[in-house]
Structure formats: structure tokens, C-alpha cells
């Protein structure tokens, strides 16, 4: 029977004052006792809303039941049926708008901590050296996966389990895509979590070739021709940063969030051993309100800057995960809502000295149902700062589309693909941010898995 008497079990975290000065993981996660207690709160609904709201349909009540019973290996086995990267999803999924958002207990504002339980099971499995990789016999067919981010890893993992000979081509020097260059260490530890999830995939026989830029080093056509791949999955993400096109954006001290985070995460610029420089200034302004903006702001804070987030709507509209906003506030990041930058001001040497913003107010709801911000006439103000980090979203990289004849893209540069990932080119599939534009890790994983299924069906014909 579900334990309805207790509140959601709080998760232990690093003290905000301490963690603001280091890059260690913020959240410690549950221990066995905490996990079992929290799992006991699940009502095991007959029609589980949580599962329907999960983009990869993890059998949530079933795994939680195992956790409550102390059978963590059993729980891990259930999760592994649907998710190949649970330690990552447990940490970075927007649970409040997916599984936990659909939990019946949410009515009382205390949904089961599904994300934290998933993370617990994945961490426990890793720490106890348990892997759930069951592999079918090799079928001799080669599939190429372009990009080693969440979409590519999920697709590769399924195909490898079904006996395909899978090679992932990664343009950077380390696999993981956004998990490596984008999401910071304090939210997603690189060696402990990302590295070990990827080595589990290598155990399945997946080969990863780094430093191969598909579209430059080799083309899709060459992969399918001279290299003998029967099918290709493109999960190249959305890597191109957007800028605002306002005056002053080329001043020294203005960065894309991508640059700032890549220097810090992939290149480990925060560490004394790293040769890669990074500059966060004494004061930094981050423009934008998504997860990437929170990551950039909290990174700048840890590098010693006093940080302000400037966002043109209100807190209700912030697209970032609730937990990230909460953590950012706890750590002392200032939020300047309803403000839109109009110009970045420089000193005589061409370095940033301030950002000029205009006050906004919310107007009528737009097509997406969000109330769009409208500028308040004449209401300009300046925020003094040394650094401006633009976090306005990203769009897909045109390198692959530009070098693959017959591959259709839409006017935003996104690859056109059906629900199962089929593109305009036979035997070429795509999924994740390369198709949708910037979205989430879990949606990309879902797309990768659907495409894997479609590739399997196509090649088995």
C-alpha cells in the first residue's frame, strides 16, 4: 500500500554558499533509505499519467515499485527497457512538465520525485557495476550515427542491442554532444556520469570516431558508398548560436552561451590545469531565460562574477527547469525580468562596459498562448557589466544539409523528417535538435529511439 502519510522526501544538496564557489555536483541524490521511502509514496495508478507524459515511456510505476521493495537491480532492468541514459535523464529532464507534472499527487503539489528515483537507480547500478546490456547476435549490417549527443547515443544503443555494427562520428574530441560541451559539471558530472554512460555503450560494441566532421571530413554519401554503411542517422543537434543583432555585439566581452559553456565544460577552463582561457569579468549579464541561460549564469557566478539574468518576459514564462531557476536564485543570481537589451555599450578600447535595456510589459497572448512582451516607450536603463553572455537559443548546423544532395531542410535549417525520423533521402534518418531545433535531452533521445526502430524495420525488409 502506498504511504500517503509522508511528504515528498527532500533531496540533499550542497549548501548554496559553498557550491557557488565550486563546480561539484549541486544535488547529492537519494541514498537507499531515502529512495525506498520516497518510492513508497507512489500510488501505482492503474492508468499512470507519468508514463504517458514521458517521451520514451519509461514504465515508471513498475520501476518505482521495485525501488520501494528494495530491488534496485529489478528497477534498473525495467528502466533499461526504455531508456539508455537514465543517470543523465534523472538529472536533466524537465520532470515538472513531464512525468512529475502528470503525477496524481501533483494535485497536492507533491508529486513523487520520479527524476530523483530514476537517478538513484542509475547511480546505484553504476556504483555496483551492474549493466543491463543484453545484445542480440550480430547481423552484419553497418549503421552510421552522426553526432554523439542524446539522439545519437539513444539510436546507436538500440541498434547495437539488435545486432547492428554501429559507428558514431563525432566532430569534437570528446563524445557526448551537449552533455559534454553544454551542460555544466555541477549539474551533470562529466567523468562520473556522462563518461561512464558512454563506456557502457562501448561495451555494446559501438565504435566512436571523434574528430570527424561529417560534411567536411567525410560526407553522408561517402559513408553510404565507399564506407559501406547501410543506413545513416543524423543527430547533429542544433549548435549554431543566435545573436540579437543589436549594436555592440562584437565588443570584446560579448560571448554566445555556447562559447562560454564550451570553454568551461568541454575544455574545462575552470580548472587550473586547463590551457583554455575563459573570461567572466567582475560583473556578467546573461540574456535569456532557458536552461542554457541558467547554466551560463551559474557558471559565471562560480568563476567569480556577480551575475544578472535579463529576460524579456516574467518569471512564469521562464522556459528553464524549475529546479534550475530555484538553484540559481539560491546561489545569489539576480533576475531582471521584463527587460530587453537594445544595445551593448563599450569603453574606448572596445570592451563591454554596460548593457542598455528597455522595459517591457506583457501584451496579448500570441499563437503559442504565451503573452508576448511589448516595449514600454522610452523606458531605457543601463546595467554596468564587463561581460554579456547571449543565450537566445540555437539553430541546426548547415554543414551536413549543405553537403548532402537530396536532403530536405526547412527554412529554419532544420532537417525535414517524419515522426519516425525518415528524411527525404532513402536510408537517411534524422532526429533530435537537428530536426526540431533546440529542445530537450529526453525529446532527442525519444527521436533517436524511434529512428532506430524505423531503421531496423527498413533494413530487415
Amino acid at each position, binding site marked *: 500500500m502506498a504511504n500517503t502519510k509522508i511528504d515528498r522526501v527532500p533531496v540533499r544538496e550542497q549548501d548554496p554558499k559553498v557550491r557557488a564557489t565550486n563546480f561539484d555536483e549541486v544535488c547529492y541524490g537519494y541514498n537507499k533509505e531515502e529512495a525506498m521511502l520516497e518510492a513508497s509514496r507512489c500510488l501505482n495508478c492503474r492508468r499512470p499519467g507519468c508514463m504517458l507524459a514521458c517521451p520514451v515511456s519509461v514504465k515508471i510505476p513498475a520501476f518505482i515499485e521495485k525501488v520501494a521493495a528494495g530491488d534496485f537491480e529489478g528497477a534498473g532492468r525495467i528502466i533499461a527497457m526504455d531508456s539508455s541514459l537514465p543517470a543523465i535523464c534523472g538529472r536533466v529532464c524537465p520532470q515538472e512538465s513531464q512525468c512529475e507534472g502528470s503525477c496524481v499527487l501533483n494535485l497536492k503539489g507533491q508529486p513523487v520525485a520520479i527524476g530523483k528515483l530514476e537517478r538513484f537507480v542509475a547511480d546505484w547500478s553504476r556504483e555496483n557495476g551492474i549493466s543491463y546490456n543484453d545484445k542480440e547476435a550480430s547481423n552484419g549490417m553497418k549503421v552510421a550515427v552522426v553526432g554523439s549527443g542524446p539522439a545519437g547515443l539513444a539510436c546507436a544503443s538500440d541498434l547495437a542491442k539488435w545486432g547492428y555494427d554501429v559507428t558514431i562520428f563525432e*566532430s*569534437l*574530441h570528446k563524445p557526448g554532444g551537449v552533455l559534454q*560541451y553544454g551542460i555544466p559539471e555541477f549539474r551533470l558530472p562529466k567523468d562520473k556520469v556522462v563518461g561512464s554512460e558512454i563506456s557502457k555503450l562501448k561495451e555494446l560494441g559501438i565504435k566512436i570516431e*571523434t*574528430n*570527424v*566532421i561529417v560534411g*567536411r*571530413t*567525410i560526407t553522408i554519401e561517402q559513408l553510404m558508398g565507399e564506407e559501406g554503411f547501410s543506413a545513416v542517422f543524423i543527430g547533429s543537434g542544433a*549548435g*549554431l*548560436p543566435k*545573436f540579437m*543583432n543589436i549594436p555592440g*555585439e*562584437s565588443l*570584446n*566581452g560579448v*560571448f*554566445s552561451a*555556447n*562559447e562560454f559553456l*564550451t*570553454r568551461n565544460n568541454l*575544455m*574545462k577552463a575552470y*580548472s587550473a*590545469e*586547463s*590551457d*583554455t*582561457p575563459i*573570461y567572466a569579468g567582475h560583473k556578467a549579464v546573461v540574456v535569456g531565460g532557458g536552461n542554457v541561460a541558467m547554466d551560463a549564469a551559474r557558471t559565471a557566478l562560480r568563476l567569480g562574477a556577480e551575475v544578472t539574468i535579463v529576460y524579456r518576459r516574467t518569471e512564469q514564462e521562464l522556459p528553464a527547469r524549475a529546479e534550475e531557476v530555484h538553484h540559481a536564485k539560491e546561489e545569489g543570481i539576480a533576475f531582471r525580468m521584463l527587460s530587453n537589451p537594445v544595445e551593448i555599450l563599450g569603453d574606448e*578600447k*572596445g570592451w563591454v562596459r554596460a548593457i542598455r535595456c528597455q522595459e517591457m510589459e506583457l501584451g496579448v497572448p500570441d499563437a503559442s498562448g504565451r503573452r508576448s512582451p511589448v516595449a514600454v516607450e522610452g523606458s531605457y536603463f543601463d546595467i554596468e557589466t564587463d561581460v554579456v553572455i547571449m543565450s537566445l537559443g540555437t539553430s541546426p*548546423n*548547415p*554543414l551536413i544539409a549543405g553537403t548532402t544532395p537530396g536532403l530536405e531542410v526547412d527554412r529554419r535549417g532544420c532537417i525535414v523528417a517524419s515522426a519516425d525520423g525518415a528524411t527525404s533521402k532513402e536510408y537517411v534518418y534524422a532526429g533530435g535538435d537537428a530536426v526540431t531545433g533546440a529542445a530537450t535531452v529526453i525529446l532527442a533521445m525519444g527521436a533517436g529511439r524511434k529512428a532506430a526502430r524505423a531503421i531496423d524495420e527498413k533494413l530487415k525488409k
Partner: protein
Amino acid sequence: MYEILLKKELTPTITLMEVSAPRLAASAKPGQFLIVRTDENGERIPLTVCDYDKERGSVTIVTQKVGASSKKICDLQQGESFQDVSGPLGRPSDFIALSDEELGKMRFIFIAGGLGTAPVYPQAKYLHERGAKVDIIVGAKTADMLILEEEMSKVCDHLYICTDDGSKGMKGLVTEKLAQLCESGEKYDQAVSIGPMIMMKFVTLTAKKYNLPLVVSLNTLMVDGTGMCGACRVTVGGKVRFACVEGPEFDAYQVDFDEALRRQTMYKSQEVEADHKCRIRN
């Protein structure tokens, strides 16, 4: 791994290396660059491709010791390996779209300075092999600093050398030589300049006087080199462009050189610091 098959010290501060990178060698074209990383803690350093050999599966790079990271590169020995070599990156030079017949009727002039001499080599070689007429002006501080003189002389019709102190060739700047050639009635269909940003700025000013079509190759700051970071952004024709994917070569007359020069100094103070730290440790 990316083994160093051959290492040659061209000058006390400039080193040439032939590095094993078969995929890269098979796809490299004139005008493109690559990124190297010496070790796990190393920076991603963009370098122009100086030569490539599909049969040997190797690429040649030339590096000058200017900071901590380039010193790390130059300190690697033959038989040792780079942690990473990735590329080719950037767009190839526009002239590779032209047929041999078209190229055979064209006359090019290259204006190279310092380390910029290295990336001029594969371009001049490509054109020379296809029957184009090629003249090259190479500038260096002194005769000792001059690189690839013999190689360059084999892939052009005229090689003009300029040194600041007159220790070899003409005493003076590459811009003076370019002006001299234009004044004496030499005609070129296309000029290409590669070298320090400040040199390219002044070559552009000179070439403009003679209405010489000019392309420059911009050595901006970069992290990934694939369009992700935007550190390389330059203003070209009033629009922000990414040198890594839309360049590195641009129409010289459209480039905002003053901004590009300023943006190059972004991490200058930190580089100096890193170099200093490094020397103390040794």
C-alpha cells in the same frame, strides 16, 4: 592517434610537422584549416593546412611559438602524437571551383607574411600545377625568419622576398613590393593575402589603390571551429559572419579589420599569464 611523422625546425621559433591524419588528408583542400590539441589539458588550436598527402595519409602544419599552447605544440617530438587533429574546417578557396582551362588563363599574386607563408603554399601549388601564373611576395622580419623559401620557389613564376632589415631580398614591407609591382604595370586577376591581421589590413589598403581583387584568410579566435561558439565572428560587408564556417577567406574590401584586430586580443592578458606560469614551472 595522430603521430608526428616528421618534424623540422624552420627557424628557432617556427616548426614544421607532418602529422598522420588519413581522413583529414583525404578531404583537405586549399584554403582550409584544422584544429589540434596536444594533450588532455590542451587548448583547441586552429592552424592552417600547409600541405596534405592523400597517399601518405598525412597533413603538414607549421606553428610559431607565441604563447603557452603553441610552445606545447612545438615541443612535441617526431614519433610522438597529438591527442587530437580535426578537420578539414572552413570553406576551400573559391578558385577550386574553376576549371583547369579557366585557371590556365589566370594570373595570381600572393602576399604572405610570417607564418602566413605556410597556408599560401598549398594554394600556390594547386594553381601552379593547373597552369595558372603565380607570383608570390613573402615578408619576414629577417632572413633567419624566412620559411619555406625553396618550396615556394618551386610553385611560382616569381618569388619576391622582403625583409624588415634587408638581410634578404628587398628591404621593406610587402605592401611596398606590391605597390612596386602594380606601378611597374604587372597585372593580376586575383590577389590573396595571408599573414598577421595588421599586415592584411595594410595590404588591403594598398591593393585598393590598384583595384586589385583581393581575398584575405582570417586567423580569428576559435574554440570548436564548426560554427558552434561564435568566437570567430567578424563583420564582413556590415554583416556578422563566422570565420570558421563561412570563411576563413573573405573579400578583403568587406572586412572590418579594426574590429577583427581588437577581437584577437580578447584573451591576450591571460595568454601572457599562462606563458609566464609555464616558464616558472620549467
